[in-house]
């Protein structure tokens, strides 16, 4: 045997995901060497995209106090009334322990499903304005992420088309990828999803003889862009989807977090039979409890309940009853108002710092609510390739590539203002400006001006517990 180039190289693959699939398909026999995981040949094809990521690894430093993290999406829980909450939790165990610590219904605890109506009415102005509410149509889920996962499982066969905003929420893209959806992005602007772009995407699909299974949209204080779908665009979006037979999945975790208390009519209110509405207690109460909900047309509700039984048997009764007691015993509407004030202050700190420090050629959104600013940097900068420089400078952000299923987004970054206090946000943006200056200097040196293409695989966005 002579020294040779390694045999068994994968040929014809077009990237890490394809290579992972090819690798997964090979037998892990001893003459092929050790693949590092004896279970490799057993994994389903849909695990192909579940790879380690250089970008994800860089977020590990975000937990260190030296680093200003503008990367994560953790709500700030500082305003929670922990003392009175602990009394309620103790009371729950003492008085209702036998049911709180027992299995519950897959659809969720009835009392909480009724109370969800109060939360929706608070946002919509009245129960009627939600599009009609029946607790029987609510399915409580383990965060709205679990609802997203189940909805995708219900509707998407491998290769089915899902429409999503460009960019879109990374957690949703993760679910879509896990079910091997074909995600088509639809353009948005400062007023949210562009109806003409949606129309074009729907017509394009019709020309291909295909139909999207659903449109996934975050209409209010969008993650990652921070903008809201203008009220006058909403009927057009609803009408287009109805006409083309496309279901709408309306994900609304931030709807109550408009800085001035402004709210928007839900898409569901305009077509309750063609919209699945997702709500969440993560941003208005406690993300760690993992309580969200889906409000769905009857048929979909029934399927969701069955899907929930196979996924988790039932959402935890304990956390649902904690939420229920909180809603019943606390002035939660006032807490929502104090959250708004806190996020408004942080957003203003970020916008002021961006204005003061960011180099020419950058632009960014001006959110009226929610957690995030979406920044666009000068042509040639690849925010993903720049991330190590930011880590060296002790600041972290989420590069735009994480919010696209198609590798685009290199000129963008999501900057979150939800978690760090205002003075840290200011410092973080100051550092970020230095990072951008350094990168622009490097680009000038090497004459790199055009768009950059993807170089690394794996997840590009931070995990949920990233600060």
């Amino acid at each position: 045997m002579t020294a040779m180039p390694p045999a068994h190289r994968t040929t014809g693959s077009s990237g890490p995901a394809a290579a992972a699939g090819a690798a997964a398909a090979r037998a892990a026999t001893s003459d092929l060497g050790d693949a590092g995981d004896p279970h490799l040949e057993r994994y389903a094809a849909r695990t192909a995209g579940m790879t380690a990521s250089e970008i994800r690894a860089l977020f590990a430093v975000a937990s260190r106090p030296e680093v200003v993290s503008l990367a994560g999406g953790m709500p700030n829980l500082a305003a929670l009334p922990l003392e009175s909450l602990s009394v309620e939790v103790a009371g729950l165990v003492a008085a209702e322990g036998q049911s709180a610590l027992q299995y519950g219904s897959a659809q969720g605890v009835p009392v909480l499903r009724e109370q969800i109506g109060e939360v929706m009415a608070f946002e919509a102005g009245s129960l009627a304005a939600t599009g009609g509410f029946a607790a029987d149509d609510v399915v409580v889920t383990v965060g709205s992420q679990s609802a997203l996962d189940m909805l995708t499982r219900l509707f998407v066969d491998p290769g089915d088309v899902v429409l999503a905003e460009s960019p879109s929420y990374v957690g949703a893209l993760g679910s879509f990828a896990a079910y091997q959806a074909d995600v088509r992005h639809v353009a948005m602007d400062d007023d949210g999803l562009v109806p003409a772009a949606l129309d074009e995407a729907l017509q394009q699909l019709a020309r291909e003889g295909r139909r999207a299974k659903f449109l996934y949209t975050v209409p209010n204080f969008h993650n990652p862009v921070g903008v809201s779908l203008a009220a006058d665009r909403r009927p057009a979006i609803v009408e287009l989807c109805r006409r083309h037979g496309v279901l709408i999945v309306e994900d609304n975790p931030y709807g109550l977090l408009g800085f001035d208390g402004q709210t928007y009519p839900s898409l569901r209110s305009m077509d309750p039979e063609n919209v699945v509405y997702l709500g969440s207690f993560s941003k208005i109460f406690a993300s760690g409890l993992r309580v969200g909900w889906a409000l769905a047309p009857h048929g979909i509700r029934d399927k969701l309940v069955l899907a929930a039984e196979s996924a988790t048997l039932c959402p935890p009764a304990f956390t649902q009853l904690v939420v229920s007691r909180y809603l019943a015993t606390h002035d939660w509407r006032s807490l929502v108002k104090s959250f708004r004030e806190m996020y408004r202050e942080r957003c203003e700190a970020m916008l002021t710092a961006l204005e003061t420090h960011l180099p020419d050629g950058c632009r960014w959104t001006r959110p009226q609510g929610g957690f995030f600013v979406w920044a666009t940097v000068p042509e040639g900068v690849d925010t993903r390739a720049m991330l190590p420089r930011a880590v060296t400078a002790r600041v972290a952000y989420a590069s735009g590539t994480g919010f696209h299923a198609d590798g685009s987004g290199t000129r963008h970054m999501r900057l979150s203002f939800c978690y760090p206090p205002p003075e840290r946000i200011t410092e973080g943006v100051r550092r970020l400006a230095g990072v951008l200056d350094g990168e622009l200097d490097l680009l000038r040196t090497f004459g790199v001006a055009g768009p950059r293409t993807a170089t690394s695989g794996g997840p590009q966005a931070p995990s949920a517990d990233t600060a």
Partner: protein
Amino acid sequence: MIAPARTEFSVAVLAGGLSHERDVSLRSGRRIASTLRAAGATVDEWDTDAALLGRLTTSRPDAVVVALHGGEGENGAVQSVLELLGVPYVGTRAPDCRRAHDKPTAKAELARAGLDTPEWVALPQSTFRELGAAGVLDALVARLGLPLMLKPDQGGSALGAQVVRDPAELPAAMVGALAYGDTVLVERFVAGVEVAASVVDTGDGPVALPAVEVEPAHGVYDYTARYTAGLTRFHCPARLPDDVARRVAEAAVAAHRVLGLRDLSRTDAVVDAEGQVQVLEVNVSPGLTENSLLPRAVSAAGRDLGEVFTSLVERAVSRGPVA
């Protein structure tokens, strides 16, 4: 040396840090901490933060295992502090860490000692700016040819490393590599069999463990290939003729000695089409995760990672606080 089954030592494993490799380091730290615990040691896992000095001086562990990767854990900074505090530690002394960690410096020393290493040029960003990048890049390609291997001059886990086959890709690849540090190491790319030879010294002098051959599924052993099970196949021992395998082992031990390394190291090399062993880089703090190469080599040698590290801890304790 006969394997001591149990140890009573108290050990502090340092892992984390603020380098780009924090994530890998945390995983290395967890793995080696549980391995040492299973061998009977009392183990603390500490990050290198403002609490570290207080912990070291109040807890006084018998020895420290440095599972830090990149930055201060590999450039000798943390080792210097351990020496200042008189805390015994496993691994290479501070000044030798500094020399080995800087890839261009290490390559120069290895070349001077007669080891083969791919032809290289190391340049700071300022040189490109001041002399004009286009001219410097042209000269690099003219001298080293294509493809080129680009990597940051320090750090590991292949972060920032790229193979450039098309000169048009070179400027953007430079920008990518220089995002990790101010100086880029540009090497002639050598195709061949990629191997990693770990060296341990548990009392009888540095000994090379069986080399691990690395076969990435899509040709490049990058971060994703390193840490995703299934994207790389490992052959241990490497599928090399005996004489080539012997030369790999000799090169690894020679590199360990030339750079003045202590206790353990890992030498990454490529066996080129002519069967020559070309040393790529030497690691003073090899990865210890489930996917890492040194633990595989230890297993292939019929040894136990806990036994090896227990021996290394014993050696550090017996050396005492003076390095």
